């Protein structure tokens, strides 16, 4: 499986290393043309405001929206904000995932923290840095983890959104989850392609 990491800004190398660690190929993506060859895409942690400007500067918004409508996308932290259909007190961006997010909802950097989460019965160490959280989910969205009553990991069909930073720890559970989604989507596309033939 070939999984891209949007490489305009942020923790690109960390996400690429995590993707490789679960056994997929990671590709740094800086242009819309590079999206073609991918089975899935990660929108990495970073600064969401800066990434918005850089996506606009690279003329990638429309291509990212088309990609997210068809293939699996995983947004972490800033990437989650870009992926959400609604952002509190701000305009949505890619707007593909049927959730509402609030930015900086755990406070400033001094309040950033690390904790253990229960993700579907698995203990996952989670780093929250000036993190957003998911304030509401639409129909069909699965809530996969909460912290302190707030939704911090959710799945909407082939879209995965995470408020914390799974790329900053050695635990690859969340990346494994995404790889399964990518594989499932690729085999479904292959099956429908064979049906057409």
């Amino acid at each position, binding site marked *: 499986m070939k999984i891209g990491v949007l*490489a*305009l*800004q*942020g*923790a*690109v*190398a*960390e996400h690429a290393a995590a993707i490789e660690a679960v056994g997929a190929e990671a590709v740094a993506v*800086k242009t819309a043309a590079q999206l073609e060859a991918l089975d899935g895409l990660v929108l990495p*942690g*970073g*600064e969401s*405001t*800066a990434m*918005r*400007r*850089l996506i606009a*500067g*690279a003329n990638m918004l429309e291509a990212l929206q088309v990609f997210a409508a068809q293939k699996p996308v995983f947004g972490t*932290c*800033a990437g989650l904000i870009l992926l959400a259909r609604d952002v509190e007190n701000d305009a949505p961006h890619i707007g593909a995932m049927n959730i509402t997010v609030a*930015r*900086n909802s755990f406070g*400033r*950097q*001094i*309040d*950033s*923290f*690390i*904790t*253990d989460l229960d993700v579907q019965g698995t203990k996952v160490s989670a*780093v*929250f*840095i*000036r993190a957003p959280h998911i304030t509401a989910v639409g129909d069909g969205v699965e809530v996969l983890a909460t912290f302190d009553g707030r939704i911090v990991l959710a799945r909407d069909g082939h879209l995965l959104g995470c408020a914390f*930073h799974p790329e*900053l*720890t050695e635990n690859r559970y969340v990346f494994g989850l995404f790889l399964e989604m990518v594989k499932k989507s690729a085999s479904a596309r292959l099956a429908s392609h064979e049906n057409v033939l």
Partner: protein
Amino acid sequence: MIQTGVDAVKRGMAQMQKGGVIMDVINAEQAKIAEAAGATAVMALERVPSDIRKAGGVARMADPRIMEEVMNAVSIPVMAKARIGHIVEARVLESMGVDYIDESEVLTPADEEYHLLKSDFSVPFVCGCRDLGEAARRIGEGAAMLRTKGEPGTGNIVEAVRHLRQVNAQVRQVVSMPKDELMTLAKNLGAPFEVLLQIQALGRLPVVNFAAGGVATPADAALMMELGADGVFVGSGIFKSENPEKFAKAIVQATTHYQDYARITELSKELGAPMKGIDVTSMPFEQRMQERGW
């Protein structure tokens, strides 16, 4: 159970800044220009480095009103500078909720022998370095991010290039060196042995390293990325240029697309005049900010 102020969140915050541009600003209006251009953070100051040079005298932590104004104006992280070794300025900035503190040679040092013990604080710190010895000492004290010093307020990239090449050459040396030679290198560099062991194990510095001190054009920013910087700080280069909005946007785009030369060509067209530069070799030694730090 949650843990705050630990290395994972301090260093992680800097990892989220990678590939980005951190801009010096002196008020809310400039901070908004920086944010709109795509800066990943702003450094709130009373004066940019070139004006600190002109003003002379003692440069201190800015009026807290400026930091408050900037923190209220933007949603990106806000950094601020404290004097080297000034424990109370740093504690004041921490209590205000500033996102990152720069223990900076741009301000007049408060202590000519000791830096802050940064591991004592919950807020993360960035510090300047010119070589691996200095970089490793700052990491040993708890810095969660580094920046090569360059020569601030000059608009001259030459010192920034010198320092980044020096640090990276010494990192390569550590990584390729037999372990039994590391202690003597630690002695010669004045570097904590444990930090060199970490560098050898990781194959790189254990914290993010930006370039600073002299970036004035989109090509300068791209050059620092080409040489292996994780991102850039731009001090006087934005708001001392003829057209700060254009310079800010162009420097952000050039930092991301640093190997796309056709794009850098377009970004560099009709920008207006960059900040006026200073030849570092003609500068009296005592005016060199990079000499501050021990």
